[in-house]
């Protein structure tokens, strides 16, 4: 590791290291970020939830959106897997069904960035099985 | 302080000298030297202190004065399994005294003594900082938490064979 020779060096280093603990910092204070829960029970995993989760993590970071992505149990909409729940700061959570990478991209661009609704919302009448 | 007469072997003297040297034979490093030496010998018999005094160029009386000031240093060899009972305040209010009494009773030694077979030595220490587990007993490096007087014999049993 190169020595830190100036305050700028330190600043740059901090930025590069930020991601190491970002997950923790945001997790401590999820309310102020976009929170995304990916249903990751057997049904979800079977339908490709894992791929979607990875895609979203990558894309959100690329597009500079502060978000907390967690996995959760089955939301009870196995017919619509993979399902994800998105909660924008200060808004009620919204659940999307049949999410693949393309759908995920649309959710990010329209709903998360601009608050526009997209197709595939499942009415809220479930409770996460914790 | 009573102590045991020991004869140091050449390599033991060399070892002490090495330790002193690693601290540049500086008198100000006496406490660090004593720590390292005790780590290596298990205790600090008079003869060891004499070598250290000579190497650091301080009087033996001064070295002894320092050894007897700090409770961490001992001139008596510890048992194979040193038992320490935390008598910090948190442990005290949660019954450390009764636990200590039980150890004294079963091992038939006083605090600061070693059993005749050299297996156990008993000492008290002030707070290992595991107050959540009070009362705490340490055997060697192992920490036993929430020890009750009844549990004492089981702890001793673990090390008996």
């Amino acid at each position, binding site marked *: 590791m190169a020595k830190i020779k100036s305050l700028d060096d330190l600043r740059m280093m901090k930025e590069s290291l930020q991601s190491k603990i970002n997950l923790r910092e945001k997790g401590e204070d999820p309310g102020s970020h976009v929170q995304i829960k990916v249903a990751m029970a057997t049904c979800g995993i079977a339908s490709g939830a894992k791929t979607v989760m990875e895609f979203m993590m990558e894309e959100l970071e690329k597009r500079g959106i502060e978000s907390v992505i967690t996995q959760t149990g089955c939301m009870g909409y196995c017919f619509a897997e993979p399902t994800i729940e998105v909660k924008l700061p200060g808004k009620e959570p919204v659940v999307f069904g049949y999410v693949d990478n393309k759908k995920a991209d649309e959710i990010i661009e329209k709903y998360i960035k601009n608050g526009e609704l997209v197709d595939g919302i499942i009415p809220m009448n479930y409770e996460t099985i914790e | *302080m009573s102590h045991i007469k020991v004869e140091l072997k050449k390599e033991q003297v060399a070892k002490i000298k090495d330790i002193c040297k690693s601290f540049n034979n500086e008198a100000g490093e006496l406490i660090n030297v004593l720590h390292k030496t005790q780590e290596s010998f298990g205790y600090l018999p*008079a003869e060891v202190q004499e070598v250290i*005094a000579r190497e650091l160029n301080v009087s*033996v*009386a*001064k070295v002894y*004065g320092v050894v*007897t000031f700090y409770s961490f240093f001992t001139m008596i060899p510890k048992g194979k399994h040193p038992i320490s009972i935390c008598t910090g305040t948190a442990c005290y209010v949660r019954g450390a005294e009764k636990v200590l009494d039980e150890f004294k009773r079963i091992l038939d030694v006083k605090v600061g003594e070693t059993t005749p077979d050299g297996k156990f030595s008993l000492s008290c220490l002030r707070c290992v900082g595991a107050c959540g587990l009070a009362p705490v007993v340490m055997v060697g490096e192992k920490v036993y938490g929430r020890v009750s007087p009844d549990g004492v014999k089981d702890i001793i049993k673990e090390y008996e064979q």
Partner: protein
Amino acid sequence: METIKLTIDNKPVEVPAGTSVYQAAKNLGIDIPVLCYMNLHDLGIENKPAGCRICVVEVEGRRNLAPSCSTTCANGMVVKTHSTRVINARRTVMELILSDHPKDCLTCPKSGNCDLQDMAVKMGVRNIPGQAYAEMSTYKTDFSPSIIRDMDKCIMCRRCETMCNDFQTVGALSGVNRGFSAVVAPAFEQDLEKSPCTYCGQCVAVCPTGALTEVDHTPKVIRALADPTKTVLVQTAPAVRAALGEEFGLEAGTSVTGKMVAALRQIGFDYIFDTDFAADLTIMEEGTELLTRLGKHLSGDKDVKLPILTSCCPGWVGFFEHNYSDMLDVPSTAKSPQQMFGAIAKSYFAEKLGKKREELVVISVMPCLAKKYECQRDEFKVDGNPDVDFSISTRELAHLIKEFNINFNELADEDFDRPMGESTGASVIFGATGGVIEAATRTAYEIHTGKKLEKVDFHELRGMEGIRSATIDFNGLPINIGIAHGLGNARKLLDQVRAGKTNYHAIEIMACPGGCIGGGGQPLHHGDTSVLKARTKAIYSEDTNKVIRKSHENPYIIKLYEEFLGKPMSHKAHELLHTHYFDKSSKDIFI
């Protein structure tokens, strides 16, 4: 110099910056009691651990009481030295100290001369609350040949530790243990005999209680005197006469030689002799040794060791045996005057009396505690019979005189007995730092140059400086002389010699401050070093008043050589008057 203005007990006072409250109060005539505090100003030794807390005072605006000995005056300070709060605190602390102190004042050797006892009297302590169940800190009493350590009586003033370490650099003592069992002791709390102690007795000289006292040989003196089969000889060292008077209320610096002799005669000693006689003899031997070594050195002999070191001080001998075992061949081999006296008394004088050495008891009166140890060293015995049977201190002699109900101050002066009571001015000054080397110079100069000295006084060799040096012109040959008193100073000088950084021909060393006049067996100076100066003055005026002032002119010394010894450094002289030294450094005793 900056001055500080403050108020003590409603009186304004102005003192130089850095003055302690204790000193400022003293300037005003206010006496604040102290126990642990000790200031040996001339020696540069100040002991102020601020541990006894007896000297506490109230300082306005301060939360707690302040120890006046180590609190520096500040501008505008308002101090109360004897308020109710202070008196209550002082008395309570005193009760505490006494609660951990034995109450055997009746038999304590320090009784009547004890700072703690005085303080208890002053404060009117009548009972010690809770004494019935108060645990006392107890320790094994340590009987060494010179010093008794009864640490049950230690109050942790640390004066002894300061003297042993800071002034003497002997390092025999240290504070050990912690809390209630804290005490000053040698390593491993072993006896002094197993420590590097030199028995210089400076610890005893400053101890405010009975914790450190000399081994009392007065009972042995009385028993010897009471034994009709024994002939009892006493020798008195030069410094004794300059201090003994203090024990009888005489002003420090009063020379009491004649009264002392009269008292000794009244007590019943058979022969009252003078160690000064043996001091003259020492000069003959040591001076000759110096000239011999010097001669060899000048003729290019590389094996000869210079400088030559004096060897009459047993504390100093013990010190170099412990610390300079690599230099054992440097000191003069001449025995100390005490031992020369004993050797001659039990040979030459015994022959004269027609008695066997066992029938003689030789007692010395010394300003010194190390002499007690010296006379029982094995090399100073013949078939187990010591040349000097035992040694008592100036203080013990004073006790004896009082015990024999002698009105000391009213005694008419008397003279020492012959032959071993005759002495010169040179031998008297053995008692002060620089004196031995001055005496040696007087003799060596005349022998070496064959000329008479025009001026006998060598003022360049005198003084209270810890380390001094001077060059004396021996008729064109410059002789470099070094002097040190106090073993800490000796160490500094010796380290230079060991490192080869000096060009001294001769060095005098005395273990005690000011030389023997400040010895560990002298009347207690209670921290007042002006006493030492007064004694020194007395010694030098004694010298001036002597008719003969050079050792080699002592007629009885001349006679001794003619009748018995032959000449200095002869075979017989070697046998009786010279010794050798032992390596007492702790070696690698390990397998």
